[in-house]
């Protein structure tokens, strides 16, 4: 795989703990090919560009197929081996991710990297100087520490040589195979004619970048929404967004927070982030509550990234994939549950027929080829409905499981209602919002994500304060800072497109509409009534009667009649 032209044998990662370092072993091209053919490592998310420090892969778990013998060992990086063994839903455990991030520039191992050492020394020097000054004084960072001992160089004499000699790919390959990253960078530095003319800072930057590029020190990171997203996004540069134009670093935390996602909550989610949001929410539910992951029409929720999260069976048990089209059909119909129920009944009926025919075939005791073919056919059909696959959801959820779950979800949504609504999908935002709002508990929060502001504006214009309160449209500015002595500044490039979030709280639609006084019209009248009733008990009765007919609230009439 093309990260620094090295291939990771993920078998080598087995037994590593989170946070542990390991070396990338450069492999011969042939071995690399072999490894690739074995699908030990899938370089799916690694871009072709070389300036990547983070990689992500997955190790196959045995899935009962022909690959089982080849791949008996499993990579474990989160210590959830017990989960893997007892996992009754192999569907979700097909792959176990092993995540590796190269954090060489920051690793505390001084022997590994002179730059780290240098950086640490500089920072320490700064710290000591400042410690002497005491914490109350705010003297700016002492520049002497970093510049006084070196002659100040500028780029005055720097000549940009277009055709300067670069090591060829073969030479680089040889260097990688034989040298340490330290030696490689030394060589590159020598090859760079301009190096001596660079400023001290840019010399250091040159070495730092080359070191990152050629280093083979890797570190295992824990898998969670943030690290997974960071890994995926770092491979398309920080500024890029791949999945549904969804910037996970700052938008994902906000969605989780605004939607009040926590253990015990029951969010209703419609997403097009390929499972990233689903995984993130399952992580926060941790097996308590429910996640209704909705999709429309005949489509399936695309949850391909879910397996990176290593979800445990209890976490998966909280997930309900739900066909919202069917649920909505039944919800609006006069006969509740007709679509879903009949679907299930029809399936049972169909199953009964198939079983009868199978039994008839068994009774006939015929043994020729056609009969056995028929029998196989029937069994296949039965299996397709899902009655013979007991307790497992080997591939997709079966038709039966699907129908049953939808019935269950229907009643859950109808009775208990979702505790938050999260929309981050390709579907029409306004219509899906107003269509799904009925599943949301009154007073509960909702979050709608859109990469463009316009759909949210349309939605906001239509959602008045009888629908929701506290609505706000916002985007996020999120900038990373380079923190080095005398060189602290924001990074030169940043993502300028966070997408937009609309959040708010649902208002109870059954709120006593008539009981609210529309002041401009009724304030005076109500006041007069009240004063009048105080003087004249008969008028009070009239007022009370009128109050029930008009929009004068019950409280007022109660107050007036009690004050007699």
């Amino acid at each position, binding site marked *: 795989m093309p990260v620094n032209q090295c291939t990771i044998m993920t078998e080598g990662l087995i037994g590593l703990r989170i*946070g542990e370092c390991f070396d990338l072993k450069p492999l011969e091209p042939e071995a690399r090919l072999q490894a690739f053919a074995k699908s030990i490592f899938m370089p799916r998310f690694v871009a072709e560009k070389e300036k990547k420090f983070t990689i992500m892969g997955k190790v196959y778990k045995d899935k009962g197929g022909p690959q089982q013998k080849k791949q008996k060992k499993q990579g474990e990086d989160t210590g959830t081996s017990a989960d893997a063994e007892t996992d009754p839903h192999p569907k979700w455990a097909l792959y176990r991710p092993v995540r590796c*991030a190269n954090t060489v520039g*920051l690793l*505390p191992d001084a022997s590994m990297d002179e730059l780290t050492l240098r950086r640490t020394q500089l*920072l*320490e020097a*700064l*710290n000591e100087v400042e410690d002497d000054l005491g914490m109350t004084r705010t003297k700016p*960072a002492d520049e002497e520490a970093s510049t006084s001992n070196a002659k100040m160089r500028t780029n005055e004499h720097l000549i940009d040589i277009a055709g300067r000699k670069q090591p060829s790919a073969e030479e680089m390959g040889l260097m990688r195979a034989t040298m340490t990253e330290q030696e490689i960078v030394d060589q590159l530095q020598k090859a760079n004619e301009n190096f001596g003319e660079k400023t001290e800072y840019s010399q250091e930057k040159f070495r730092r970048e080359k070191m990152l590029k050629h280093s083979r020190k890797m570190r295992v990171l*824990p898998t*969670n929404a943030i690290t997974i997203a960071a890994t995926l996004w770092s491979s398309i540069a920080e500024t890029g967004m791949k999945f549904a134009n969804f910037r996970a670093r*700052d938008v*994902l*935390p*906000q969605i*989780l*927070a*605004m939607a*009040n996602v*926590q*253990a*015990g*909550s029951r969010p209703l989610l419609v997403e097009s982030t390929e499972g990233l949001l689903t995984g993130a929410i399952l992580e926060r539910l941790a097996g*308590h*509550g429910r996640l209704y992951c909705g999709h429309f029409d005949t489509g399936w929720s695309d949850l391909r990234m879910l397996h990176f999260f290593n979800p445990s069976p209890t976490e998966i048990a909280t997930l309900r994939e739900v066909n919202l089209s069917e649920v909505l059909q039944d919800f609006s119909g006069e006969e509740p549950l007709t679509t879903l129920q009949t679907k299930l009944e029809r399936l049972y009926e169909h199953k009964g027929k198939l079983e009868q025919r199978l039994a008839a075939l068994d009774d006939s005791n015929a043994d020729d080829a056609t009969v056995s073919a028929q029998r196989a056919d029937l069994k296949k059909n039965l299996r397709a409905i899902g009655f013979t696959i007991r307790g497992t959801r080997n591939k997709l959820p079966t038709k039966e499981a699907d129908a049953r779950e939808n019935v269950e979800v229907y009643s859950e949504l109808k009775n208990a209602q979702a*505790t938050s609504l999260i929309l981050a999908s390709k579907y029409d935002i306004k219509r899906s919002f107003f269509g799904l709002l009925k599943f949301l508990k*009154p*007073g*509960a929060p909702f979050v709608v994500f859109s990469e463009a*502001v316009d759909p949210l*504006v349309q939605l906001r214009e239509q959602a008045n304060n009888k629908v929701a*309160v506290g609505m*706000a*449209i*916002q*985007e*996020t*500015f*999120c900038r*990373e*800072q380079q*923190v080095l*002595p005398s060189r*602290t500044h924001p990074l030169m490039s940043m993502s300028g497109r966070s997408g*937009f979030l609309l959040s708010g709280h649902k*208002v*109870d639609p059954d*709120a*006593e509409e008539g009981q609210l*006084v529309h*002041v401009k019209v009724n*304030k005076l009248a*109500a*006041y007069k009534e*009240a004063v009048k*009733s*105080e003087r004249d008990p008969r008028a009070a009765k009239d007022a009370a009667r009128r109050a029930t007919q008009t929009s004068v*609230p019950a*409280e*007022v009439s109660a107050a007036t009649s009690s004050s007699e």
Partner: protein
Amino acid sequence: MAAVEKNLTLEAPASEEPAHRESGPFACDDKDIIKDGDLVVVFENHTSITKVKVKRGETFEHRLGTFDLDHFVGKRYGSRVQPMRNNMNQRKRARTGRASRGESGALVQVGGYATLLPLTPELWCDAVSRRTAIMFPLDNAMVVSHLHLKPGSVVVESGTGSGCLTNFLARAVAPHGRVHTFEFNKARVDAAKLDFAAAKLDDVVCCTHANVYENGFGAEVESTKADAVFLDLPAPWLALPHAVKVLRPFGRICTFSPCIEQVQRTAAKMAKLGFSSIMTLECLPREFRITKIKTTVPVVFQTEEEKAIVRRPGGSRGGANAEADDVAKGEADEDANKAAAAQRKRARPERKQRQDMRPFQTSSLETSVAAVIDQCARPMQEKEFITADRVILPFDRQKGHTGYLTFAYAPFK
């Protein structure tokens, strides 16, 4: 606001034994109907958000008027309430010092309403009485996610401050996790404890009065180890050695500092202590509003319809027919430019100009002639067509800076 605090302080902390919960303290799953003793948010608008403990027989003074808390009980969350106000005016009531009920005048419902919402950490940030500068929701959300918190995590926070972040942390780690929060100001500790008790966070949050610089996080927490540490202190670098002691290997740490000099020193100390993947972020929300603005269409770019609306004085279409047209169009014009007119109405200082901009209407020959003469005397720019377009604008005042968040992994031993 004062009344809110009063209600909170009256409530004895942890009146009932915290039951073993399988859901977070802010989970809304059992929150349908407001019950006696619930902490609810009274949401009027973005600038008026208060929280109140519902107690039978008590009232709640609000900007809008007096709420009778009896009325809250049994209402559904998300429903709207209107306050009662004595018909005696406020000043008089203050002077006589009499209770608002049972007065000479009956209580009447008054204008304006508020919505009752369940308490969430976000609303808490708006409703809390600020004892210190608070952490804002975006930063809080970032901290929770980037500290890799999930239910069951143990997290250490210092200092507690107004407790805004504590709520976010508690929500993320509940039900089985723990938030150990430290604060060196005794008054703030007491106030925070009351707040947490009112929100029923007792079984998740443990608030301690301690000076972290000097004494660290205590032997108990150090022995159990924490998954994450958050430091919001003037000098986080002084607390870092203690954080190392309390963190599990490769745990997460985050420091929040408003000044970059603090960040530099913190990062330096982190590098020295062996923290890795040090990353400093700055996050700001940018809020938008929907509004309408005036747009001027120069004469040359006007369509025929627009020209018809803003008729040119002595123009090519002069004559009696055009005059009749104008009379007929008068109403339609008004509709078309209604929004623009509303906009103009707000722009008080330009009153004179505002009148001039209105497409002139003629109801009688006299006025029309006068208007034509008037129109002719005006400079060209006043014949421009004004439209009112819906636009999305950022708010004028936005947060320019809150602080830098510095994240890192603890040393892997």
